[in-house]
């Protein structure tokens, strides 16, 4: 059973990564690179501020900054070269993330006792999209590089809590369905937003607002397609591998 689950997850993760990588290259990567140009401009016009920011971020840079901005004493961190290597690593990360999400989807389907088909796969994948993409994005909108924000650990903590609470809430509402479960589920859906996300910055930025808005919308769109392909392909591959196994037996 575990072999069937992992095989189906590998297939689904791969197909979703192919689709999502293509969309990322076409829709979001150009915006990220454009935003980095603004970030670089800001750091060259304000060198003192920039060097402070770089230290706080642990020597982080986006590959477009002048090495002198790092103060020269810290060795630059490894990062993929611009162009093809960067695209290759983005695709690889998408593959790793896609297979990871597909495995989680498979685990949840099995734990809930649902037979994975493209239909149930898609249903659970939409729940996955709501839990890890839409709900966290309500509090922490998708950000381009250079948009200043609250400390990383706080945002990661809120993201994980929101994703977990939303997933649990959706489970209670959609699968448990008793009055008390639905009430509890609604509380879980709303609680992270009442507690409040770490504050987004209202500081002025050289980055055009249109870029940020476009990026947020495209990011959510890509996340939805990513999840939809994972769900459909997982159900399809699970059925396919099951048919093969019975044919061999």
């Amino acid at each position, binding site marked *: 059973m575990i072999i069937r689950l992992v095989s189906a997850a590998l297939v689904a993760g791969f197909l979703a990564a192919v689709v999502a990588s293509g969309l990322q290259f076409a829709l979001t990567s150009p915006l*990220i690179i454009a935003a980095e140009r603004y970030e670089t401009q800001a750091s060259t016009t304000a060198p003192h501020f920039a060097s402070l920011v770089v230290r706080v971020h*642990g020597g982080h840079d986006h590959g477009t900054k002048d090495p002198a901005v790092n103060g020269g004493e810290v060795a630059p961190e490894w990062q993929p070269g611009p162009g093809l290597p960067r695209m290759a690593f983005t695709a690889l990360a998408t593959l790793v*993330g896609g*297979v*990871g999400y597909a495995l989680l989807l498979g685990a949840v389907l099995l734990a809930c006792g649902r037979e994975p088909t493209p239909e149930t796969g898609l249903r659970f994948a939409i729940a996955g999209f709501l839990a890890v993409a839409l709900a966290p994005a309500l509090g922490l909108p998708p950000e381009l*590089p250079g948009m200043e924000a609250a400390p990383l650990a706080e945002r990661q903590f809120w993201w994980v809590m929101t994703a977990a609470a939303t997933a649990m809430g959706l489970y209670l509402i959609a699968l448990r369905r008793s009055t008390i479960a639905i009430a509890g589920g609604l509380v879980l859906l709303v609680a992270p937003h009442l507690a409040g996300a770490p504050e987004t910055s209202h500081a002025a930025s050289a980055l055009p607002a249109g870029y940020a808005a476009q990026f947020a919308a495209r990011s959510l769109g890509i996340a939805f397609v990513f999840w939809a392909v994972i769900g459909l392909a997982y159900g399809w591959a699970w059925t396919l591998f099951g048919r093969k196994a019975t044919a061999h037996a």
Partner: protein
Amino acid sequence: MTTSTLVLAGTRTNERLGAVLVAAFLGLGLVFMAGFAPAMALHNAAHDFRHTQNFPCH
């Protein structure tokens, strides 16, 4: 008859539980690696994916 059915159901439940745990563990590990791992090299490699999938990033 009853016993064998019970045993069968027992092993199937165990197998299912095992599969759920292994898949959940592997899945969380991969998602953590792609979306959250703090190592700078991993962060830089996955940078554009993290931004697009709205993982909190630097």
